């Protein structure tokens, strides 16, 4: 069944507004996605009727909230097909999840001389935590290069793998190039040398879902706000055995079993990794967002977004002097481009005043920009509520800006 975009758009109240007198065409979904009414209603209702801290109270509201919170955990578990609900840790976002693994995994498993592998197309959030960990542990960071088209060079990756490799961290899809990476192959190869793998799913999970068991990935991270859920909530999936062995990375309430000044023992999974009051309303809102995405159908979303991607790619390429950065065979609905010598900031500013919201700059992927020797790009990242007419307006805005700036 294919998706009815006009019906979908009615679910997102923000999309009906005008900016600078023009209807809003929102193409900054890679940065954050808009929220359907059901998510807004869910968080509103909790604040209005149910708010109470989880896991602690003996009273009615607290019990209700705890049940909803743990229910959200099971929704996430089911959505990414984790084996156990305690393998789902709620964090502040993808960045929080990656930092948690970099610390806890690093403390337990990484020794001087060991190696961590990332790819050349990672978001800064999937580079810096590993650099910090390598500095701390005396380990070395290795980088998988990519081709001009924006595809990872797997032959080079194979050469980097060795018995020194402790962990490989790559994204499911690149936020600035759009490349969908062959993560199954990357995981299998890493496992072949006994290394663990973290997949940064920030740009992947909302465009087609994930099955952590069939992929056999060790860690998976994603953010709520990029999958139509609230901001400030994210997920870390980790295999039970690994999470069980790894030390907690933050101390505080809820993560302890027994505290004394002589010795503190930690709570069981997943609470060991959820110190302090977690963003329980965000987690429940994320559960509502997952329900929504499932009701639309993740396959239908992926199929529609691919059509949008193809249409926008063809149409943008008709513009004289326009170059797309990231032309991999498999892509999410993200297009990074430049036109002639025009500075991306200039183009983005003009497009904004035409009601077309794009992002310009390095997109937190400076190594990618260095690889192409450019200062930045204009990025249009599309979601399943974007229309073909909006893509037309995107192209018109590019043309108008080009005419003004050339």
């Amino acid at each position: 069944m294919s998706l009815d975009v006009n019906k979908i758009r009615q679910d997102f109240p923000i999309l009906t507004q005008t900016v600078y007198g023009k209807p809003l065409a929102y193409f900054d979904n890679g940065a954050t996605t808009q929220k359907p009414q059901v998510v807004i209603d869910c968080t509103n209702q909790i604040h209005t009727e149910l708010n109470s801290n989880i896991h602690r109270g003996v009273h009615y509201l607290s019990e209700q909230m705890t049940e909803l919170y743990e229910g959200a955990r099971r929704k996430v578990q089911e959505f990414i097909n984790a084996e156990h609900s305690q393998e789902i840790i709620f964090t502040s976002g993808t960045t929080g999840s990656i930092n948690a693994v970099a610390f806890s995994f690093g403390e337990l498993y990484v020794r001087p001389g060991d190696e961590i592998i990332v790819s050349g197309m990672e978001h800064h959030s999937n580079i810096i935590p590993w650099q910090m960990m390598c500095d701390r542990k005396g380990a070395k960071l290795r980088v998988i290069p990519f081709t001009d088209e924006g595809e990872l060079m797997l032959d080079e990756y194979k050469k980097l793998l060795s018995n020194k490799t402790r962990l490989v961290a790559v994204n499911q899809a690149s936020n600035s190039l759009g490349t969908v990476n062959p993560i199954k192959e990357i995981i299998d190869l890493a496992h072949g040398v006994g290394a663990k793998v973290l997949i940064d799913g920030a740009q992947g999970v909302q465009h087609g879902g994930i099955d952590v068991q069939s992929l056999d990935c060790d860690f998976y991270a994603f953010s709520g706000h990029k999958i139509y859920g609230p901001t400030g909530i994210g997920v870390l999936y980790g295999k039970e055995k690994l999470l069980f062995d790894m030390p907690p990375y933050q101390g505080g309430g809820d993560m302890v079993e027994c505290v004394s000044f002589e010795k503190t023992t930690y709570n069981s999974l997943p609470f060991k990794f959820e110190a302090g009051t977690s963003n329980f309303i965000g987690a429940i809102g994320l559960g509502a967002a997952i329900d929504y995405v499932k009701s639309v159908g993740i396959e239908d979303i992926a199929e529609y977004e691919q059509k949008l991607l193809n249409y926008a790619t063809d149409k943008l390429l008709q513009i004289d002097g326009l170059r797309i950065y990231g032309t991999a065979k498999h892509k999410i609905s993200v297009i990074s481009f430049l036109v002639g010598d025009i500075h991306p900031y200039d183009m983005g500013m003009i497009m904004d005043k035409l009601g077309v919201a794009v992002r310009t700059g390095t997109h937190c992927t400076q190594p990618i920009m260095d690889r192409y020797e450019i200062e930045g790009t204009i990025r249009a990242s599309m979601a399943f509520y974007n229309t073909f007419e909006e893509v037309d307006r995107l192209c018109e805005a590019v043309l108008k800006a080009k005419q003004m700036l050339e």
Partner: protein
Amino acid sequence: MTLDEIQEEIIAEFEDVGDWMEKYNYLIELSKDLEPLDAKYKVPENVIHGCQSRVWLVADVVDGKLSFTADSDAIITKGIIALLIRVLNKRSPEEVMNADLYFIDQIGLRQNLSPTRSNGLLSMVKQMKMYALAYHTKLSQA
């Protein structure tokens, strides 16, 4: 003309400019009039990094007045630089130090000087004022 008279002049010019597209067209025109910055000054010591665009700024003092030359890799940023230089050039260090650049707000370009924009402009204004302070200190000691 005083510093504020020039600000008023710019505000009046922008009142004649219609919508956003015209405003940007005007800034693009202004950018072309900006005195070019010699390549030898486009060195790391003079660069002000923004995440969105880069700005180069060089300052000097001639007969007790400040002289600024600047450039940017983005045209609209450059147009705004042209306006800032028009207001702040050939002013005494004290005038630059105490300048209240209200015209930016009045012509609707405030967002371009917000810390969140990260286009180098806000840092450029700060840097201009730092130069003014430095020259002020230097001149008063001489």
